């Protein structure tokens, strides 16, 4: 069953096309890696899926569109590139993770709608009634249980990423969207982060769409790969992508440029 179907999707800003007629599907359990240079429209694509940008074309979640799509939007987990907040915000790590359950009513409505349609997805916390327990388990999954009572502003960049993943996990997401989450984290936290992605995709069977510049990581963890630069150049299995030397070369170069650009600024 396709969890996400994107068809002829276009998004424009001030008459400039940021995303141009993109079509692709994501199957349940997939880990789709999206590669593309800076400004390729990856974030815009995600924002359109999340209902934050107006678009032309068609997006379906479990076959639902329009008003029903809106109802199940709260079941998408999203970890953006940046989350800005006050550095001394008085919230602990568990406070932040509990925010993932803030619209519990909407989450329940969405779950009901999907159940009624006869579809299902892997819900690891389905039988857990207690929210505190869900929060502890989600923090355990990302390996941050010990930081539960720590203030959010005291965490490192790598730890923050995992907190935001936990915040998405508590609600048993239908789909998890990760927007280029590792750019400046050190090697150790990068490895931890990749292990979390691998774990939630392979063990918990959570469907993930992940934009990344790290081809090596994608070659290890992704099941499918999509290359985009406003339009979609490639969409297929990981094996097919990595067997095409030209594609790999092009995107390695763009990733390198991206990397150098990051160090310039």
């Amino acid at each position, binding site marked *: 069953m396709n969890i996400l179907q994107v068809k002829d999707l276009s998004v424009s800003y001030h008459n400039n096309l940021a995303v141009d007629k993109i079509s692709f599907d994501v199957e349940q359990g997939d880990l789709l890696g999206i590669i593309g240079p800076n400004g390729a429209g990856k974030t815009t694509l995600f924002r359109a899926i*999340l209902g*934050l940008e107006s678009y032309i074309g068609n997006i379906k979640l479990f076959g639902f569109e329009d008003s029903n799509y809106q109802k199940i*939007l*709260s079941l*998408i987990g*999203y970890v*953006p*590139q*940046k*989350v*800005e*907040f*006050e*550095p*001394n*915000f*008085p*919230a*602990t790590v*568990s*406070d*932040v993770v*509990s*925010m*993932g359950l*803030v*619209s519990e009513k*909407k*989450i329940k409505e969405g779950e009901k709608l999907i159940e009624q349609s006869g579809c299902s997805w892997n819900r690891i916390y389905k039988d857990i009634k207690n929210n505190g327990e869900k929060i502890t388990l989600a923090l355990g999954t990302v390996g941050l249980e010990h930081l539960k*009572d720590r*203030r959010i*502003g*005291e965490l*490192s*960049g*790598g730890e*923050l*990423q995992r907190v*935001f993943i936990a915040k998405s996990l508590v609600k048993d997401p239908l789909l998890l969207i990760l927007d280029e*989450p*590792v*750019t*400046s*984290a050190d090697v150790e936290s990068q490895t931890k982060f990749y292990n979390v992605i691998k774990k939630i995709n392979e063990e918990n069977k959570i469907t993930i769409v992940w934009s990344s510049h790290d081809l090596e990581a994608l070659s290890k963890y992704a099941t499918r790969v999509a290359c985009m630069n406003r339009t979609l150049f490639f969409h297929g299995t990981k094996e097919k992508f990595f067997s095409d030397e030209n594609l790999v070369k092009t995107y390695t170069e763009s990733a390198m440029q991206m990397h150098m650009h990051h160090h310039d600024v």
Partner: protein
Amino acid sequence: MQKALIAGIAVAIICSFMGTFLVLRRYSLFGDGIAHVSFGGISIGLFLGIAPLWTAFVVAILGGLGLQKLRQSTKISGDAAVAVTLVSGLAIGVILVSASGGFSVDIFSFLFGSILLISFEDTALIIGISAGIIATLVILQKQFLHLTFNEEQAKIAGLNVSVLNYIFVVLAAVTVVTSMRLVGILLISALIVIPNIAAMMFGKGFKKTVGISISMSVFSVIVGILLSYYLNLAPSGTIVIIAVSLLLGTLAARSAGLISKTDIKTPSKISHNS
């Protein structure tokens, strides 16, 4: 004096609870702006011979919503929007006050507070409204917390951000007008801001921070009212000075290492993995 203490405690609780969200959303001066707008509302009431507190409520809510609109427009920055609203309210007030025969005792009591002279009816009103505000904040605290933490994330999580923002502004406006009798328009933001910045220095989670802030606020109000009563001082000023002393005490305790310092990574905003 009992009435003063009871009304004072109610106001202390709503100002610091609401203030937690106001300070974190960088709306610290929003309270001040609304307070000045409600001065315009009071003068309208006095000018027309209607109960000034009710006109103040209406004008403060309208002013708050207007301010919110101004803030959302990209043309004016947040602090400039507060400045514009603040002076407009004050200007209307000054014109109407002079048209109705100049400053009276009534006006002074609204400007500087007059908690010791509070009537039974006003005390009952303050308690009723405060109970309503506290109940709303308790019910919506998770939503407001997420909205305050990051508005876009709250939207993605499925919250109706624009409705919540309107409720937030109305709550803030009602809080300010309700609190006017205690510290007066000119010092109202003190009760909203000071206990909260002190409480945030303790480095605790959300609930504990709100608890510390409310305790500090209630303490300042009780001690302030008692001191002003026995030493014949202005209650509003005394309350604020005690709150400021608590803040300075917290700062001192923190630099002396008595409170664990939070290890803040960047001086301004943290943006994760940028």
